């Protein structure tokens, strides 16, 4: 059903759609990031994709799944991040828009103006992966604190690295420490 949507999308925007694929029954359209907003606006207004489901990112650093040939593995030349927008239409069709973002320039146009529900989810994606959403009205960290350095869900963030805000360095609170002195 949504295969028709993919075909219509490719016919309407041949310059914007990189490729389309079906993965596990879901339709995925890879969109060039310069054309994302016009494609999304057309999908919402003309095809009835009015329900925003989620937006998230995928970090493909050192991605080597078992069973795939080495040509599919991640290497330095491929874009490191993928941003996925999942949409659902009034007729219950599912469509996922994917945008590739390289490591040096992880910028993706924001869809928060089209679907206000994406506002906080894009902030979360920025918080966890450091994807910059161009045109987002208020791109700040949403879960973590302002003092946090780095993006914890990136593959190169150390697994147990904590960035404490407060610790018991006040010795008056800790009689045991004072005794050892």
């Amino acid at each position, binding site marked *: 059903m949504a295969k028709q949507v993919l075909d219509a999308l490719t016919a309407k925007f041949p310059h914007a759609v990189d490729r389309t694929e079906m993965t596990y029954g879901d339709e995925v359209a890879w969109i060039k990031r310069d054309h994302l907003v016009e494609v999304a606006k057309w999908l919402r207004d003309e095809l009835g994709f009015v329900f925003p489901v989620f937006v998230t990112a995928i970090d493909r650093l050192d991605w080597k799944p078992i069973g795939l040939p080495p040509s599919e593995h991640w290497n330095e030349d491929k874009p490191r991040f993928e941003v996925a927008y999942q949409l659902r239409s009034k007729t219950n069709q599912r469509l996922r828009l994917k945008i590739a973002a390289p490591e040096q320039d992880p910028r993706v146009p924001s869809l928060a103006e089209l679907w206000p529900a994406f506002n906080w989810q894009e902030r979360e994606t920025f918080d966890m992966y450091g994807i910059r959403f161009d045109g987002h009205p208020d791109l700040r960290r949403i*879960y*973590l*604190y302002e003092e946090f350095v780095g993006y*914890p869900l990136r593959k190169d*963030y150390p*697994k*147990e*690295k*904590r*960035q*404490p*805000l*407060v*610790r*018991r360095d006040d010795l*008056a*609170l*800790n*009689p*045991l420490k*004072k*005794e050892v002195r």
Partner: protein
Amino acid sequence: MGVELSTTRLEDAAKWAKQSLLERGSNWGRKFSLFTYPFVTACCGMEFMSVAGPKYDLARFGAEFPRFSPRQSDLLMIVGTITEKQGPALKRVFDQMAEPKWVIAFGVCASTGGFYQNYHAMPGCDQVIPVDVYIPGCPPRPEQVLDAIILLMDRIQHGRGHSQLRTKREDLIAAEREE
């Protein structure tokens, strides 16, 4: 500095004999009127409710009355995971409580961080404030909580809570300085 920070039961008994009547009486009063501040952040709160409810009945130990203001409570129960972002709030709540005050780390997340060994979870709330009694378990059984309360009451009676030791210690240091 001659302050014992950990003692055996026998030494406790000797201390009990040495305690003044006033100290003994005030500690007795304190241990049976623990006003709880439940710092409930996670699923352990369900277990806390069951302990506070009629079946296990924390009221038998005089600790049934949760005060939702740290200024009116003297037992801080940290129930659930503490994240690094919550650290300043937790310290502030602890600082607002009036002396003497006691802290119970309820459940394995509050005690050690539990299975959250990652960027956001604090590895035990004792990184920020001193804890008197740790309750393991995910979540702990209500019997464990009652056992911890009894342990804490024992400590209060013998003047071995963190805040009691601290006060005693400060008194001793002041006395030493005066000499």
